[in-house]
């Protein structure tokens, strides 16, 4: 599942600057199963600048996220990037999901993803490599809430997926 990663020497050196940029490489993905609508609701919170520099590198474009000059089709690129790096398997098979869109808030962007028509979840497996190729320190936190069974885990470059089994309780 490798894509064209033009990560450069520059990005390998984690900033040496005395920044106010309080940089840490962290995303938070909340995954909730909603019984009434039989759907899985996924909200991913990531830093805008990290997503932007990653998209810029991969696509060799300047996305200018959250500006007036943001590329009109930025959502298409975000969706493609999601499809490559973020996988959800339900009951042992990879699920197709829909990227609904995004919302900016200060320096973070929320990505909204939905999987419909899930009648039962026996197991769910999440793989999340978002931003890891640009930021080796990246940690992606997953918070699952499936029928009130909660689990959270941290995905890193060393361990980029985790599984939650629900059937044998």
């Amino acid at each position: 599942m490798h894509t064209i990663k033009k990560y450069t020497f520059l990005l390998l050196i984690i900033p040496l600057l005395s920044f106010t940029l309080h940089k840490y490489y962290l995303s938070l993905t909340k995954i909730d199963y909603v019984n009434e609508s039989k759907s899985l609701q996924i909200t991913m919170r990531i830093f805008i600048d990290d997503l932007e520099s990653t998209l810029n590198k991969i696509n060799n474009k300047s996305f200018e996220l959250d500006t007036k000059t943001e590329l009109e089709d930025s959502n298409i690129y975000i969706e493609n990037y999601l499809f490559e790096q973020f996988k959800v398997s339900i009951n042992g098979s990879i699920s197709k999901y829909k990227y609904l869109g995004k919302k900016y808030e200060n320096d973070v962007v929320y990505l909204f993803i939905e999987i419909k028509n899930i009648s039962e979840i026996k197991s769910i497996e999440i793989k999340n490599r978002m931003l890891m190729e640009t930021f080796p320190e990246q940690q992606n936190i997953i918070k699952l809430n499936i029928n009130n069974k909660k689990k959270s885990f941290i995905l890193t470059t060393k361990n980029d997926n985790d599984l939650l089994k629900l059937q044998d309780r």
Partner: protein
Amino acid sequence: MNMPQLKLSIFGAYNRNLQKMKKLGYLFLSILFITATSLAQEVEKKERKPGHRNLSKFRQLKQELPTPNKQHTASGAPGYEYTQQQVDYVMNISIDEDTNKLYGDQVITYHNRSKDNLEYLWVQLDQNMRARDSKTPEVKASSFNSIFNDPITFTENYLKESFDGGFNIEYVKDAQGKDLSHMVNRTMMRVDLPVPLVSGATFVFKMKWWYNIPPYIEVNGRSGYEPFPDGNNNYTIAQFFPRLAVYNNVEGWQNMQFWGRSEWALEFGNYDVKLTVPADHIVDATGELQNEKEVLTKEQRKRWELARKSFKDPVFIVTQEEAEKAEKERSTKTKTWHFNAKNVRDFGFASSRKYIWDAMAVNINGKSVLAVSLYPKEGNPLWEEHSTRVVANTLEEYSKMTFDYPYSKAVSVHAAKQGMEYPMISFNYGRPQPDGSYSDRVKNGMIGVITHEVGHNFFPMIVNSDERQWSWMDEGINSFVEILAELDYDPNFDTGNLPKDIVAYMSIDQDQLSPIMTQGDNVFNFGPNAYTKPAAGLYMLRNTIMGPELFDHAFRTYSKRWMFKHPTPADFFRTMEDASAMDLDWFWRGWFYSTDYNDVGVKSVKSYYTTDKPTEKAIAELKRYNLPLENYKDYLIFFAEGEPSANEILKKTTDIQVLKNYMSRLSESEKEELKETPNYFYEVTYEKPGGLVLPLIVDITYEDGETERKSYPAQIWNKNDAEVKKVYATAKKITNILVDPDLETADIDMTNNSWPKKKQDSQFDTFKKELKN
């Protein structure tokens, strides 16, 4: 008539005292049978635990803090034997725009103010971190993350030599011109003194050097130049000269290597610097310009006079129109700008022909200080609107929290990807789109970085802590004051440094966390560790733990005590306690010395109401102890657990005959002193899954919608670190309990904070609704 009122909560005392009370005409007991039962039934079958040392989270920091002495006292102030060196520099610097080389020579005067004799001096050669033989890239782990490259990346990664940025030292001589023995150990150079430098003596030596100015965007640096497509460069130059290391009472020589992250420890001194640059460049630097007449036009000097009197709006010294004209030409001549700076710990400067230049006056407690900005047209319209105003606001707000800004000016220079501080001058990012538009993110980033870097004038440029050792002492303390300054500039500003903003960091895997009290080079997640966490902690200390009045006095005391000196963490911790009469060791221990996090919640709520009918539990309890109920029922008010059943309407406590009788015998003045009689009783158990001890803040909401705030000091946890119970006796029914309602204490898990458990509107649903509209 004074009635004995006995409150018994431990059953052991119950029986004995009840006999006594029966003889009294009246008695009023409040009995918590639940507590009594559970205590009585507890069976001791546990194995005897081994003994332990004092594990209290409130124990003093005796082991962690260094023993106080006559240089750094127990109160946190400099002692009477405190000493500090002074180093003066006279330098000639020139920039070759064609080759991007910087040439310099310097005369260094070292004043040994310590009581010690020195055999050698240590000089910092920071540019050697960029030398070809630098060990900085060597210690970085690399992994093979990419299985294919485009040719550009491949060339960058595997074909290109690294940038050759080390110092090339031409000579190190004594005042008479004789070569001095010296030894370069990477970023540190030892200069051997011909004879030991005795206490109180002065040593003069000279150096000459040059280095390749780094294209800082490409090689990621704090200083260097940014090339523009129009062929011009923006030079933002610092760490450009060999600088003396600190010799102090705590470290001796602070000569830990510069690995690229942990910044500097520097001595104060006087600087006399001549900067030779292309004649059409505009220059600003640390210190006061000495030769205005030689380098500025008559018109520019006239405008400076206006700026010095303009307290409301910035005045242009060089307008955008003039800057745009200048950047189209290229002078082959040079000009020398001469700056003097007294009592500064470093020197930085900026030079370009692209600069727009504006300035305004700031009133600091009756003294006029200049706020100045330098930026190319690429920074506009954002920069002309905000930069100088933010500088002015920063000087004002920081002065309120510390001391009156003692220097004559503060300059903010536009630099694409920098945020870096030097005395009186800083390099800051924030660039609009080519069409001049900019997002709030860019604008707020720019306001934030300018506030931060100008704020560094106070920490560490004046309160001169050892950055190499303790990044948080300048970055964290500065980020804290930055919050207050930013909120003053814009009350809705998202500072990113509040307690709520550190929650994500404090919840990550413990393997990825370091205590704040860790030397900077060894810290994981440097940003939140050295900036946000200490800033959020100090904000919490000010607003939640100490209160602004106590905090501000103590903080100002620390700032004034260590102004133009070298403080250590212990000096800060001790002064904050010394000046406030608050023991804060528990806070430093938890927030600064550990990676513990805060998580507090409501574990359970038991509700009770009063009744004159003996409850089953009360009957059972009395029976167990062989106390005939009929003897007591007219003397007791009973607490029933839960809610009254449907056919049993809640009786007001004041309607209970036992109490009524008792009350009727009270004098009018005694009645007046009584509080409102409660009808509802709650025993709330607060649990603390987190390791930190912090104040417990609770909002209690009543049935009529009124909310009451309870603030318990952190010491509420000093007997039981896991949970604590509180009883609330209220006239109105409690409908809601919420822990940390204003997100003041960085609670990492809010799901256990409310009673009853709240179902929150999901962000997802909100977004979907928005999509539909």
